[in-house]
């Protein structure tokens, strides 16, 4: 549970198309200062008479605790289904019902380690704030971003400036290296003597990143994305199997004990099934 979570009516300050995504800025007041990289927001979609009864979760891209509107909070939205499309269709001035900050954040090492940030699609969004924090702690930060195609790489200029190296992969080769982030991952981990990997993106990418990271013996924190009905820990829909420190696998809520989790603790490959030995499994 993120103890700073607040529900506010947040005005859309800006909504700009960037490649395949919309970069959206909300005036959220003072809660902005409590948001940490990895946290997410939950936004009501569709308006009062909507048939959509559930909020949509979006990773926080950045927050600013200043500006004429008080705190600002930014997200990157891929218009996908009806909820995200509705959101990206709203204009500045419109107010949405928003809860933030939610969930866990990326753990920040106390030492100036070498970190590699791996983002897939809009999963890059929370990584730029993270890289800034890491930089300020004296870490060296490398980044790999991947997507199916160039338009789905979200890599703003000022974001790029915070990293020491940036590798881009696309499956169709429209920009950067042709392939997936995981094709270049092992090489970069070894060459740059990476200590910790942070990742955010599709579950398949997180799983592959986790496998490579543990093979090479580096730590891996990832922000998972499970379908969430409430975002605040009351519905139990967003669970994933995680091995606790006591060795016990439990179905853990990714909205309050995640989205950022230790990659090595996740029992990957267990979509649509409960892993054997899970607490309470039959």
């Amino acid at each position: 549970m993120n103890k700073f979570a607040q529900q506010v009516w947040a005005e859309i300050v800006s909504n700009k198309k960037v490649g395949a995504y919309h970069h959206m800025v909300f005036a959220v007041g003072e809660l902005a200062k409590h948001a940490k990289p990895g946290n997410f927001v939950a936004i009501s979609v569709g308006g009062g008479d909507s048939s959509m009864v559930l909020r949509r979760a979006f990773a926080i891209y950045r927050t600013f605790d200043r500006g004429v509107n008080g705190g600002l909070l930014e997200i990157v939205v891929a218009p996908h289904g009806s909820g995200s499309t509705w959101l990206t269709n709203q204009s500045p001035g419109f107010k949405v019902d928003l809860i933030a900050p939610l969930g866990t954040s990326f753990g920040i090492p106390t030492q100036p380690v070498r970190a590699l940030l791996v983002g897939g699609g809009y999963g890059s969004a929370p990584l730029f704030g993270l890289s800034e924090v890491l930089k300020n702690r004296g870490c060296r930060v490398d980044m790999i971003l991947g997507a199916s195609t160039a338009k789905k790489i979200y890599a703003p200029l000022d974001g790029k400036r915070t990293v020491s190296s940036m590798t881009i992969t696309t499956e169709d080769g429209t920009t950067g290296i042709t392939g997936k982030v995981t094709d270049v991952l092992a090489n970069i981990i070894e060459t740059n003597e990476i200590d910790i990997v942070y990742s955010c993106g599709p579950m398949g990418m997180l799983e592959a990143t986790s496998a490579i990271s543990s093979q090479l013996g580096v730590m891996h924190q990832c922000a998972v994305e499970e379908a969430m009905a409430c975002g605040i820990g009351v519905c139990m829909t967003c669970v994933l199997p995680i091995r606790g420190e006591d060795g016990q696998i439990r179905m853990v809520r990714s909205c309050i004990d995640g989205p950022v989790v230790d990659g090595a603790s996740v029992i990957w490959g267990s979509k649509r099934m409960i892993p054997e030995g899970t607490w309470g499994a039959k």
Partner: protein
Amino acid sequence: MFNFSTNVGGAEFSNPIFTASGCAGSGKELSQFFDISRLGAIVTKSIMIKPRSGRATPRMAETPSGMLNSIGLQGPGIDQFLAIDVAWLREQGVKIIVSIAGESVEDYAVLARKLRSVPGISALEVNISCPNVENRGQVFACHPKTARAAIEAVRRNVGGELPIIAKLTPDVTSIVEIAEEVIAAGADALALINTVLGMVIDTNTMRPKLAGKTGGLSGPAIRPIAVRAIYQIHEAMPHVKILGMGGVTSGRSALELILAGASAISVGTATFGDPTAAMKIKDELEKELIAHGFDSVREAVGYAHRDEGNL
């Protein structure tokens, strides 16, 4: 002075807005958004004897004006639940209704015995209608005999003190028949309605969206089914108190269920869309009742059944 207090199965509550079982976490998560002692009661997630992992994910699918869930009763088991969750809730000064679920009649008996002498519990909600079990035959509330057996087991083992609220499913040919059975078996009140069995197929993967294939439909989509079930049962047995639920999202929709015959309202899915939904509904309901000229919520219960005079 407007009297917002209500009675369900013999237990008194300061106001008629409760949480719905399985829709309020442990209470802690909501207390971040409002003071949970302002609830009429918190109804806890159905607890079983042993720890339970629940079903695999995906466990939810949004549907038009509703959602499907197939949590499958994930929980820590009764012992840990009493030691941790109930202990914490008691400290909050909120009335507690414990929801229990079993896989066998014997399970219900064991749970009832465990709860028999636990202090600070206002009532038991006996969930005999969870659709998210592997075997539909396990839904006790689907058949008069099994419904009766489960409730009898609870009644026998819980003693005469704790009110029993039997939670029923609308997925039956005659909900009135089941209701009569469980009241005869010793239930003091009824909780209506549990979710409706449904399914969504993902047109991309072309498979059922939920790992458990079917799930329980909740939210405003099912409100007309809830109103009908509550109305039918209040018509058949007006003396039996009903805890109503199913798609309540506003004071008006809460009023609708109350007029149909509910003495209190559980708020479920609405909380997912808005953590403070229960408090908003409570305030709106009070205003609605006062605007309609009621002096108490009790006067409004079942008011839609009054004789047709001049319409």
